[in-house]
């Protein structure tokens, strides 16, 4: 067909916009549109004539999932970030926890300034996260400098429901926390090196410690499931 003939071009544009140009003829016409400005102009004129007819259709609200799908397709990273952040990635959570920890850190610094023959242990104070419904108090966790063991101890016994236990977590700067095991709510717990993840004392692997309330035996999922009741930042 000779698409350069204005009448033919116009007739095809009309059928294209009206929707009656179908199948292979429609795809062929669409590829010609890309190459011929005069065809595009003919299509635009037909759109101006016919498309306003659709103004009589009553609007239909699409469900929210349509927009969510658009966002997910166009901006996958944005869509991932829009999910509520887990507690260990929320800035506000750590702002509270580290503010409360600063006085304790000062006291520890004085203690640690006493010369010792060995490298000092690394001590982390885990403050209550401020949830009124949760047990009060604070924990101290100390790593031996060689990372050989970790000892946790509540400053005073912490009241935990009888059917619940406390679980200690190493929180990396990025990614999900790793369990360091269950800890006692009333006395010292020693976690031996072979129970600790390798390089747990490197900044890249641990930026904070946290304690969550879990069912007996610990979190069934490998990630904290209960409320996080104590947390403290690790400064190396």
């Amino acid at each position, binding site marked *: 067909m000779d698409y350069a003939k204005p009448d033919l071009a116009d007739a095809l544009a009309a059928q294209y916009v009206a929707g009656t140009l*179908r199948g292979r003829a429609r795809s062929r016409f669409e590829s010609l549109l890309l190459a011929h400005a005069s065809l595009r102009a003919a299509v635009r004129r037909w759109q101006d004539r016919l498309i*306003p007819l*659709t103004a009589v259709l009553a609007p*239909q609200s699409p469900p929210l999932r349509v927009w969510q799908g658009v966002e997910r397709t166009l901006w996958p990273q944005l869509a991932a970030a829009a999910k509520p952040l887990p507690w260990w990635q929320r800035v506000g959570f750590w702002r509270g926890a580290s503010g409360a920890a600063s006085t304790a850190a000062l006291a520890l610094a004085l203690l640690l300034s006493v010369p010792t023959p060995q490298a000092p242990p690394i001590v982390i104070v885990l403050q209550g996260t401020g949830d009124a419904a949760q047990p009060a108090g604070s924990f101290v966790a100390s790593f031996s400098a060689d990372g050989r063991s970790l000892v946790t101890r509540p400053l005073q016994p912490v009241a935990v429901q009888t059917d619940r236990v406390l679980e200690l977590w190493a929180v990396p700067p990025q990614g999900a926390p790793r369990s360091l095991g269950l800890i006692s709510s009333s006395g010292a717990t020693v976690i031996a090196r072979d129970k600790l993840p390798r390089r747990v004392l490197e900044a890249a692997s641990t930026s904070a410690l946290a304690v969550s309330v879990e069912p007996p035996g610990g979190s069934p999922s490998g990630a904290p499931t209960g409320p996080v009741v104590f947390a403290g930042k690790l400064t190396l």
Partner: protein
Amino acid sequence: MDTTTERSAWAARSHELAQLMSRSALGDRAAFARLYDLTSGHLFAVVLRIQRDRALAEDLLQEVYVNVWRAVGSFDAAQSQPMTWLTSVARNKAIDSLRRAQSQPMLQSVHREDEDDDRPDLDQQMADESPGPADLLAQAGDARRLDTCMQGLTAPQRQSVALAFFDGLSHAEVAEHLHQPLGTVKSWVRRALMSLKQCLERAAQRDAIGV
């Protein structure tokens, strides 16, 4: 339905929509979200009218807006009305979905129903939930110029154009629906479109010289 108001709203919103589109072209996601809020109701209605499968229509609408975001830089406010441009993207997507679905069982069953003389015809089937295509065309014709021009069409011409335009029926489907030979329907549609065009052009000229 007061279509005169609707059609002027169509034009009145043009300025705002054109601004949202040019900001979207620069990557402004908030502008794009606003554009979606203002236009998705109309575009969904257009798609649903052609693609009756609601789940499929939702998928199509999603693809429409993904395409709009990617192609919005090619929109030229000097050449097109925003709503016309957006509606055309949606219509093309919906019509293409019919082409893809042609061999699929669900659509075949729709065709079988159409062929069955005992079944109520398409206009009656749609009457309970939504206006038939001929009603829509009559309403659209309320706008002054179109009204005059629609009067110039014969009844079968009007009906053929309405079925094709609003419901996305192919020539063959319109012929089947109206129990007419394919060639007859093709010429009705062709003549209807051409007389509509000539009539609209004459009306525009009359308006331009203030008669």
